[in-house]
């Protein structure tokens, strides 16, 4: 697949995200049991503050009095104009809330990925270079860590570092100490698999004829690694990072909920719990768009690292 085709495919995915999320949340709104307007008004003004006036206002605001199809078109039209409406619970514009949450999510995701790289790359290279017991140890640890869902890793981290040792806060947001456990949790769950990928690719390169030849012609192991190893190892590793993006996003949802980290994942889970439909739509949309954009960046990075490949996917 040429790069241009791939970019067109990604653009298509972007549209698909908007349409899919828009349609699903529309169904979600229509599927609320009972009189939707009453239910939404009740969640906004409290169950005692609801009367038929409030319900009528909500009905008009959300277009609930219109027929199914015209309301659906209006719903999608609003979405296309990035008009996401106001939160049903707080009444604030969804877009502002999303920007606020996005910053926190990105901070968590980037820190987590950085720590994951710092763990996985040296560990993978070392276990490939020395092999033996180090390799068996990392394999066992990785398998065990991979069997733990990310929220269980987080929970164990909380129990160990926050409750037993009392080094770090349990949950919340504010100081740098609050970032440590969530980021570490994400990093551990990412590194569990990626250190094995680094290991496999490094082993492949270390035993390749071109690598042996580089050393025979007089390069030191370190020089051979820098000149012939790094780039060859990094192509599949970066490509694998594209596969792992899904782990990052799903991890962020779970970790933010666990640690009450005020990001998009936490926002999404909370909005679903509170049936705050505009916020569900906005949060899901942001995650989908983020996912597609990051995937595109990975595609481009693979293309830049290895221009030989016509097929960066």
């Amino acid at each position, binding site marked *: 697949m040429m790069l241009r085709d791939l970019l067109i495919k990604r653009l298509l*995915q972007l549209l698909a995200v908007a349409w899919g999320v828009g349609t699903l949340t529309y169904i979600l709104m229509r599927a609320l049991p009972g009189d939707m307007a009453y239910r939404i008004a009740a969640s906004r003004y409290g169950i005692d503050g609801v009367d038929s006036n409030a319900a009528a206002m909500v009905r008009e605001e959300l277009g609930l009095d219109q027929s199914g199809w015209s309301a659906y078109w209006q719903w999608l039209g609003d979405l296309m104009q990035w008009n996401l409406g106001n939160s049903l619970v707080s009444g604030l514009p969804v877009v502002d809330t999303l920007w606020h949450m996005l910053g926190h999510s990105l901070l968590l995701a980037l820190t987590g990925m950085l720590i994951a790289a710092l763990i996985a790359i040296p560990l993978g290279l070392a276990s490939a270079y020395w092999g033996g017991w180090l390799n068996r140890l990392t394999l066992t640890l990785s398998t065990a860590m991979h069997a733990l869902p990310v929220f*269980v890793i987080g929970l164990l981290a909380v129990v160990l570092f926050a409750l037993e040792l009392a080094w770090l806060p349990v949950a919340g947001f504010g100081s740098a100490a609050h970032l440590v456990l969530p980021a570490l949790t994400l990093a551990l769950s990412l590194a569990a698999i990626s250190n094995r990928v680094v290991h496999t690719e490094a082993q492949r390169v270390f035993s390749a004829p071109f690598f042996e030849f580089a050393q025979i012609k007089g390069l030191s192991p370190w020089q051979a690694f820098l000149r012939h190893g790094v780039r060859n190892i990094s192509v599949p590793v970066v490509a694998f990072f594209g596969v792992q993006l899904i782990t990052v996003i799903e991890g962020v949802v*779970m970790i933010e909920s666990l640690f009450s980290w005020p990001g998009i994942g936490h926002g999404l889970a909370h909005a679903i719990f509170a049936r705050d439909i505009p916020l569900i739509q906005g949060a*899901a949309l942001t*995650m*989908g768009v983020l*996912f597609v954009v990051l995937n595109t960046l990975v595609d481009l990075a693979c293309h830049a690292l290895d221009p030989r490949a016509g097929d960066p996917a």
Partner: protein
Amino acid sequence: MKGIDFTSTRFWGALILLTLCLYAFAAPILSSQDSATQDLSSILRLPDSTRWLGTDHFGRDMWVRLADALQLSLLMAALCVLTSALIGVTLGILAATGPAWADRVLDGMTTVILALPGLVLVLIFAAILPGSFWMLYVAISLVQWIEYFRVTRAITRQVARSPAVQSSRLMGFGALYLVRRHYWPAIAPQLTTIAAFGAANAILMMASLGFVYVGIQPPLAELGLMIVEHFPYYADAPWLLAQPLIALALLVLSCHLLAGRTAR
């Protein structure tokens, strides 16, 4: 088939999974307790001779509740694997051997579904019908059939071009014969690995949703839900929190081992 290889990871995976299945389905029969009866005068009890795994914060019997939760997870995994494998393999063969437009339509469908991270898609579906086991089942299967589809399509395409299939066609054998004789034997060995990872993923998804409180609702026993419910009692009853954690980890580990290789 040669004898059983006791050192292989697959053997250990199968052994753990079988033990868990046995426990999940036999435990409620062995015990006289049931999973819903509360006994508020004996909460957070340590295991004893009548309540073999102790009691939870409502005094419910953990031996039976844990078995119930495992049953639910195993059932979800089995249903999702069967459904998504059936749909994925059928559509995969169709895409590889059918008309070109079918291939394009299916390719478009997978692109659309893959545009959203699986968990986010399942979360939205779960929001439409809160607490519904069947909605989760539909949502997880919707995400998972794609993996079977892609593998089946790639393999079938290759096989369809082979001389064996070409000559079968020339001899006038029908589509059903080709599937049974040529495509299925090539696809089948790959399916175990996908199915094992798929089962692990289905279990994880359901537990994740339970954990953020939008999946299966109380008072049903579900592993992820039990973990959040027991967490506040960690200081008084750490063994209570440990039970669903260990069960979930063992369940996922057994599936991963059964897959026969470390992920991807």
